[in-house]
């Protein structure tokens, strides 16, 4: 499936854009993780990487649909 991904912080530098379209084999957050890891190995070097679906942290088991708002959440550092 095709997904649009919003990127923030260092993940924007790694993916090279504020919004990136990816073709994922499968339809879960875990499948998206595998695709990201293969295409952008630099993501694996981060302290953590969470994925948000419709503005909520989502576990690997969550199923994605093409209309979901998907975002990469690298280690946060607010405050």
């Amino acid at each position: 499936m095709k997904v649009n991904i919003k990127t923030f912080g260092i993940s924007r530098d790694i993916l090279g854009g504020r919004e990136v379209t990816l073709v994922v084999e499968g339809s879960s957050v875990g499948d998206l993780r595998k695709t990201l890891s293969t295409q952008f190995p630099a993501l694996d070097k981060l302290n953590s990487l969470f994925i948000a679906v419709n503005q909520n942290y989502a576990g690997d088991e969550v199923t994605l649909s093409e209309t979901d708002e998907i975002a990469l959440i690298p280690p946060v550092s607010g405050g």
Partner: protein
Amino acid sequence: MIEITDKPIDVLKVIEAASLHEAGAINTFIGTVRNQTSGKTVLRLEFEAYEPMAVSEIKKIADHANETWNLLGYAVSHRIGILLPGDIAVVIAVSTPHRKASFEACQFIIDNLKQTVPIWKREFFEDGDQWVSAHP
């Protein structure tokens, strides 16, 4: 009140937003930009946020604090954009009937904000820059 803003934070406005006449204590945390990290001079910081999610995650933390300490009022304001050493990055104010709860709730909110709220900080030095906490 919860806000993400690219303008300087008005501390009094944040305190007023958290204040109620029933309160005996208003505890305020002000987070500022340090001029150095591990001995390296910081020239400026750049903050960015995933704004709608940052607001909803702050709301979750405040709701959690409210369950534990029964807050009378609270307000959180976080700045984004370019900040210089000494600038205010975040202000949190909570009001409670008595002081102990206000200290604890305020600390709980800032500690959790740093863990879960999607806001990122990039430090700029004389010889480069880095996203804070990104790498081990």
